[in-house]
């Protein structure tokens, strides 16, 4: 199973928002062409019209039907003939703005692909060039007017806030403070970012101001995920801990709050992937380095 061989990200099939969480279903094994040597990430991108499975690697971006049966699109990165000092890869995947899929690159550019409701006529509609360092992660949310509905992060910790549309507009840039931003999510105009130094920071998407700083983990944070129905935040790190947090807005002061809800120690496992399995964030799945299992946690 080529997807199981890299300490990459863990992604689960999107659960339909209007249905109760269903047990995970085994979809089959994806046959990856030999050209694609080492997929670094895989994610299901949920657009209103269709769901695509997107893989990134050192060579480029591949998009498949949601069940992995048909390759819809392939975008090759400009890889030099001889290995260069700086690595070339695509990293960071997100659906955005109703009909786009955004993918980050090691050059710092974010590729915006326009996805037709059906068929294979995917086009590269725009390249966002604001990051000077390799992109680490991308997150989006639907229908947040003006406040920005897309956030991109990079190795230096810089975050860029965008408004999607026919043309993407840069709304603001939050400069990094030395630590890599390894993971980012967006919820109700709040940017939650996880860093290499174990911190989680919450930013106001509209103003770019910091609203909370949490000394969350003792090692590099590998994964953040957000449960859209409840504002629960999941963080997983190399310190073998997985934490569940709850974000909220105080209606009186408009302050953003974050509460610690649950801690799970996955003994002797460097967590490298963590995802909620349902939109309310009642269940989550975790995997780690050298682990061939995906561990699922839920209410007893």
């Amino acid at each position, binding site marked *: 199973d080529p997807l199981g061989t890299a300490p990459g990200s863990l992604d689960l099939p999107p659960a339909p928002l209007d249905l109760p969480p269903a047990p995970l279903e085994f979809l089959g094994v994806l046959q990856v062409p030999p050209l694609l040597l080492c997929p670094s990430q895989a994610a299901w991108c949920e657009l209103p019209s269709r769901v695509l499975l997107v893989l990134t690697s050192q060579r480029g971006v591949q998009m498949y039907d949601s069940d992995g049966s048909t390759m819809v699109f392939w975008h090759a990165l400009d890889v030099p003939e001889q290995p260069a000092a700086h690595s070339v890869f695509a990293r960071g995947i997100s659906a955005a703005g109703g009909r786009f899929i955004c993918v980050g690159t090691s050059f710092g550019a974010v590729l915006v692909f326009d996805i037709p409701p059906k068929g294979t006529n995917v086009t590269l509609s725009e390249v966002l060039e604001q990051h000077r360092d390799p992109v680490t992660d991308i997150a989006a949310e639907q229908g947040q007017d003006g406040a920005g509905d897309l956030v991109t992060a990079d190795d230096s910790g810089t975050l860029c806030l965008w408004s999607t549309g026919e043309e993407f507009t840069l709304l603001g840039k939050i400069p990094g403070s030395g630590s890599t931003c390894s993971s980012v999510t967006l919820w109700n105009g709040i940017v939650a970012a996880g860093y290499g130094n*174990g911190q989680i920071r919450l930013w106001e998407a509209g103003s770019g101001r910091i609203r909370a700083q949490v000394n969350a983990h003792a090692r590099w944070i590998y994964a953040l995920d957000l449960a859209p129905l409840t504002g629960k935040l999941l963080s997983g790190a190399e310190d073998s801990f997985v934490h569940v947090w709850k974000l909220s807005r105080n209606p009186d002061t408009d302050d953003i709050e974050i509460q610690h809800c649950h801690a799970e120690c996955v003994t002797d*496992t460097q967590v490298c992937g963590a995802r909620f399995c349902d939109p309310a964030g009642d269940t989550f799945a975790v995997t780690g380095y050298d682990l061939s299992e995906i561990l699922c946690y839920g209410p007893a």
Partner: protein
Amino acid sequence: MSARTLPLLFLNLGGEMLYILDQRLRAQSIPGEKARKVMNDIITTMFNKKFMEELFKPQDLYSKKALRTVYDRLAHASIMRLNQASMDKLYDLMTMAFKYQVLLCPRPRDILLVTFNHLDAIKDFISDAPGILNQVDETFRRLIEIYNCLSDGEFQLIRQTLLIFFQDMHIRVSIFLKDKVQNSNGRFVLPISGPVPWGTEVPGLIRIFNHKGVEVKRAEFTTAGNYVTPQREGSFELYGDRVLKLGTNMYSVTRPVETHMSGSSKNLASQAKENMAPNPLAKEELNFLARLLGGLDIQKPAGGETGFRLNLFTTDEEEEHAAQTRPEELSYKVINIEATQEPGRRAELSRILGELEVAEPRPDSAEKGEDLLALMDGL
């Protein structure tokens, strides 16, 4: 995958190899002068100028087999010989030790401190040979120049590349089991206490800011972790206290090490798969090996010198038993060069390999185990 990974992999595995050889040379009471010659010869070969130039060029990592071949040559760069079982064990110990260090590295950047610990120790081995010392210092400076300025993200990529290389290797090592840093299933123990990495805060504090960015509230949370603030950062200079202990010498004469080859069935199966699957990189691998070995200057023992055999096991019986019981899937053996390769390339590699061929030293009684005794008698 970072193209900057190979120098760190090679130097750290090489450092672990030297620790083990040093321990075995002393445990087997090899006379000081002979032991020094072995260490000096291997270190000279390892830090060969041309070889280092090739090594530091950006390039991908290749298979465990290809690298194993390089260490096979390196271990035989002097008058010492190791048989298959001892070489297998040596390589198992080297790789598991470095896997442990990569995994436990507090920050991705600390992989550099682990490397510096190895180089510091190598310099101690050859402190009486200024020529070789210069060679090692040259590599040291090259490391500092190229790596000190890399970003955390780049170091994390290097670390991930190393972790992928070591994935599914779960050989149990007695010294790790005794120290309770490895579990009986071959997985390493990850501590949830002790100092946090430099630049990281002890987990537990939440700070809330208002819309003007002014702190308005603090809250705490508790976890099972029991961390403390680190004292200071290790030195990334040519000399200095590295603070981090990972990568220092953990062997001593009184602490022999054993490996347990049983592994898990999954481990065996996955390794077997790697060995049997046709390698799409065979051609590139050949180029890589040819380039690397081309840079390796192997010194043939001069006419009068007598060689000896080093045993990684306590007794020859154990060594023989290990050779017979090692699962076929775990055997590294020698790289298969497929007949479909370009003839020119093959000839080039054969030429290089041929040049490296070193005649086995054959004392009068060449029976297993006796050569060393014979050698001792002759001193």
